[in-house]
């Protein structure tokens, strides 16, 4: 099982790595992931057929709105692995896959603050202006660091069984998980604070609150808020344009006045 565990971890790193270097969310979809896993484990046909049913299951479950119930990619790998290795039927494979998918979703949460703590490192790297080094390190991160913890867990799950992992996650004190979750929801605020301090301007700062209210109280979708903001911006722009033109014409008028006075 150790060898199959390694192959599953490889499948995970492979599909995630490709997606990260092509800005895709394509290979981590169950239909591709299951096929790749099946191929690596030596049963391409099962991988393809399971990919179809896994994609159908996970099609509606998306990350929109925050919490993801189960990691589709990890679930697919485990489902195919159990079906191919143990000879279980598709339903049993899926039943085994969902717990690991939920474990992986918690691991993703734990990893978020860890990866966020690299943000200042990237900023320092950018401040050195070394674009080549930035690219090399981002490639390395995209291929290995970002998703390595999950690969290790996948390996352990396939090689030594899921039960131990479930017990481990359950044994973590609840306050650690809730603390980490709260931290990652607040850390996004740092990025926004940097952005706000850059574009903040006394004259237009009040629009921050308008956007907040439109999203929080009225629960409008982003595009609707953008259109409203755009309407106000166009009105503002056209008024300012008139003022600019008036100023131009005004100075022209004033100068012609002077000329006529001189003439007389």
């Amino acid at each position, binding site marked *: 099982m150790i060898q199959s565990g390694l192959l599953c971890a490889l499948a995970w790193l492979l599909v995630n790595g490709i*997606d*990260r270097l092509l*800005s895709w*969310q394509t*290979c981590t*979809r169950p*239909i591709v992931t299951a096929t790749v896993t099946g191929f690596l484990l030596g049963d391409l046909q099962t991988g*393809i*057929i399971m990919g*179809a*049913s896994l*994609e*159908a299951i996970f099609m509606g479950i998306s990350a929109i709105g925050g919490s993801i119930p189960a990691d589709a990619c990890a679930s697919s790998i485990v489902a195919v692995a159990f079906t191919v290795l143990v000879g279980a039927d598709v339903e049993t494979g899926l039943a085994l896959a969902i717990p690991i998918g939920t474990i992986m979703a918690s691991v993703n949460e734990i990893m978020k603050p860890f*990866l*966020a*703590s690299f*943000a200042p490192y*990237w900023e320092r790297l*950018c*401040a050195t*202006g070394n*674009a080549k080094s930035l*690219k090399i390190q*981002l*490639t390395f991160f*995209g291929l290995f660091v970002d998703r390595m913890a999950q690969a290790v867990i996948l390996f352990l799950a396939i090689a030594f069984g899921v039960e131990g992992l479930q017990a481990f996650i359950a044994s973590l004190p609840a*306050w650690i998980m*809730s*603390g980490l*979750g*709260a931290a990652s*929801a*607040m*850390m996004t*605020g740092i*990025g*926004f*604070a940097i*952005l*706000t301090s850059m*574009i903040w*301007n006394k*004259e237009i700062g009040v*629009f*921050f*609150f308008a*956007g*907040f209210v*439109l*999203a*929080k109280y009225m629960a409008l979708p*982003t595009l609707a808020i953008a*259109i409203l*903001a755009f309407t106000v*911006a*166009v009105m*503002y*722009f056209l008024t*300012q344009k008139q003022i*600019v033109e008036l100023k131009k014409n005004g100075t022209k008028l004033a100068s012609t006045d002077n000329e006529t006075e001189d003439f007389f």
Partner: protein
Amino acid sequence: MAKIEYSNQEKKTLRKMFWNSGYVFAGFNMVKMEGNAFALTMAPVLEELYTNEDERKAALKRHNGFFNTHAVMFALIAGITYALEKEKKTKNSVDDDTIESIKAALMGPTAGIGDAFFFNCLRIIAAGIGIGFCSQGNILGVVMFILIYGFSQIIARWYLLRAGYTFGTTFIDSVFESGLMEPLTKAAGIVGLTMVGAMVATMVNVNLAWTINVGETSVVVLDVVNSIMPGILSIGLIFVLVKLIKKGVKPITLVFGILIITIALAFFGIF
């Protein structure tokens, strides 16, 4: 859109930008989200335009700010930013704040459009076709899925990058000639700040789990605070952070500060 002949240098820069724009999810983190990828995508532009080393470093650091949109629309904004940076260097008509305002104004709406078109529409079509083939054990289904959902995004990224640059150049030229750059900056700032406010409302959460037990009744603190104004804690958090950043507190201090405080408070059941 008018056809524009790109110079060899522009072609080279756009090509480099295109490859770098594939890194949207690499080094993704909750603080800057796609900021790393944006800095990397702008690096060829800065290489082309900035001769002064210190200015180039500062510009690369500036583009490492918070950035988040759909992976394909990312290229469109990068193209527009290329045009803006070029205007800034050659005609000095655009300043840093304008560039950041325009980036902030565009990321929200483009994310919505990208998600709606690629994730919620094209992905479903591709999966539908793929599942049909795959359920019969035909590998063609996987190939079709990758072609329809994956390669369409690569092609879209290439064209949107160029379209953004072309649009940016022609648009900014006409604005600059009419002397309306300052009103435009403010107008972009209006959209930008509104979108930042909206994103703070949806993406920044202060999840207090604190309940105070007074005799028989228990008070959920978050509900009490939210009854004053929903999300008042998020706004408070943002402005405390803005204040700290203006005072020169480093982001690393803030990251670890938040982490330590939340976990410590979570131990006492506050988070």
